[in-house]
């Protein structure tokens, strides 16, 4: 419990900053919705002028852009991008921070097992993500209700929004397993930014080519917002793949970290 609280305290600031940024992005773009909706037809014409490849790449669905859910799902792509960076950062730094700041000697000479160390850190990271998601979801829903032009399905809104958490889980797990696999991580940000953008660009490619195989490779495409809007359901295959990846990566983290030599300073 002491380690959990300590970790939570460590990540308090970054949780606040990331949550604020997510909401910032959302509100800024949402604020434009009323004027956008008013002239939706004009915009549609304008957007249809874009080559289809480009529209696909940036995730524009012209037909649905006029509705609040359609508009939201477009912004949401970028909210998820931002959230993925947060989660990846968190995952990568959880264990590597102790090595980089040379505090591993302090923590691991205390009467605790390495399993307990990982568990406390993982739980703290999850708590931080859950807090981010709850705050984000609440504010997003409130803003959407204020600016809506037509009624929208709360359930679908929730279903889209909560995929932020799922994708964050995937990147948290990815960050953690990378941090124990790589020998020494000098700086977290370049690694996590690089990885997240890599996947994001792969996701854009997947959209332009419509290649289903590419979809498997990038978590950003596991939850297709237009599919969710049409069916009010997720695609089972991708949920399973995501779940397997998260469980696999976290088990690997436990296993590798328990066996790992903590190098001298």
């Amino acid at each position, binding site marked *: 419990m*002491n380690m959990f609280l300590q970790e939570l305290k460590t990540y308090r600031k970054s949780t606040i900053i990331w949550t604020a940024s997510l909401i910032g992005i959302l509100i800024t773009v949402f604020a434009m919705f009323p004027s956008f909706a008013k002239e939706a037809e004009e915009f549609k014409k304008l957007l249809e002028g874009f080559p289809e490849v480009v529209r696909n790449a940036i995730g524009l669905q012209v037909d649905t852009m006029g509705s609040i859910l359609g508009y939201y799902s477009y912004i949401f792509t970028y909210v998820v991008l931002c959230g993925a960076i947060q989660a990846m950062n968190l995952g990568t730094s959880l264990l590597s921070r102790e090595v980089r700041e040379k505090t591993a000697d302090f923590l691991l000479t205390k009467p605790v097992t390495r399993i307990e160390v990982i568990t406390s850190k993982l739980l703290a990271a999850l708590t931080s993500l859950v807090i981010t998601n709850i705050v984000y979801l609440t504010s997003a829903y409130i803003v959407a209700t204020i600016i809506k032009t037509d009624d929208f399905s709360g359930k679908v809104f929730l279903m889209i929004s909560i995929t932020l958490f799922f994708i964050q889980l995937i990147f948290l797990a990815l960050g953690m397993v990378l941090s124990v696999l790589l020998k020494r991580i000098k700086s977290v940000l370049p690694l996590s930014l690089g990885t997240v953008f890599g996947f994001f660009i792969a996701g854009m490619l997947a959209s332009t080519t419509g290649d289903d195989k590419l979809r498997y490779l990038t978590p950003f495409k596991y939850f297709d917002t237009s599919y969710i809007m049409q069916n009010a359901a997720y695609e089972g295959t991708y949920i399973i793949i995501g779940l397997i990846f998260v469980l696999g990566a976290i088990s690997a983290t436990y296993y590798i970290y328990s066996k790992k030599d903590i190098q001298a300073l």
Partner: protein
Amino acid sequence: MNVIEIKNLTKFYGKARGIKDVSFNVEEGEIFGFIGPNGAGKSTTIRTLLSLIYPTSGSATIFGKDCIKFSPEIKKEIGYLPSEVFYYDNMKVMDLLNYSASFYKKDCTQRIQELAKRLNLDLTKKIDDLSLGNKKKVGIVQGLLHSPKLIILDEPTSGLDPLMQQIFFDLLEEENKKGATILFSSHILSEVQRLCDRVAIIKDGQIIKVEKISTLQENTYKKFKIQCASKVDKKHFDMVGVNDLEENDNVISFIFKGDINTIMKKIAEIEITNLWVVEPDLEEIFMHYYEKEE
């Protein structure tokens, strides 16, 4: 009873040598020195005892229990002070010590206050703002606050001024009198001599010798450097106990082992302008004593 028993402990980092076939015991209630030049394997041995790293082969027990298998249990009674201390920078000294204490199921508040007062450590400061010596003090308090039965110190004196070093040694001796066993690693012979009962000497990853400090003290070496007023034949110092005799212009230098009086008399026979007598460092002792013995 042995508090620490190390049996054929071997650790390779890939192909690079860490330690090879290290075996020695530390008895309950003693202050045991662990000495060797930098890179000899002192830290590797200690880190294996603390299960920060895992041995390639061999084993070690602490309090009669395997140091890897029962690691969390054993660590309840171990206080560890690493050579370089780094702590969570955004914490205050008191926060860190409380965090450290929270791992042990006992109230350490009073002990923290006591130790901080002895070491003259300001508990309200941020660790970030502390000097190296003061960070070291945080390390000492952190290592002793739970009154451990075994204290493991890995080159603990770096960064401490002589006065603090004295207080630190006093603290260790008090803990020892209360029953704590101490494993003290260092590359400075004199501090080990000052404090320890027995010592293990490690070089190139292998234990060369485990002996009593009293035996080691009989073999005290002194390094002499003599500046003469005029040219003196270096043969003047060609006598038993003199090693590594060198002459450079009017400066004669050598390493001496034996009765200090005989050499002083010898020096008195000539006209000198300056004289340095220093403790040879470990490397030099190894070169002139241990290697010859093998």
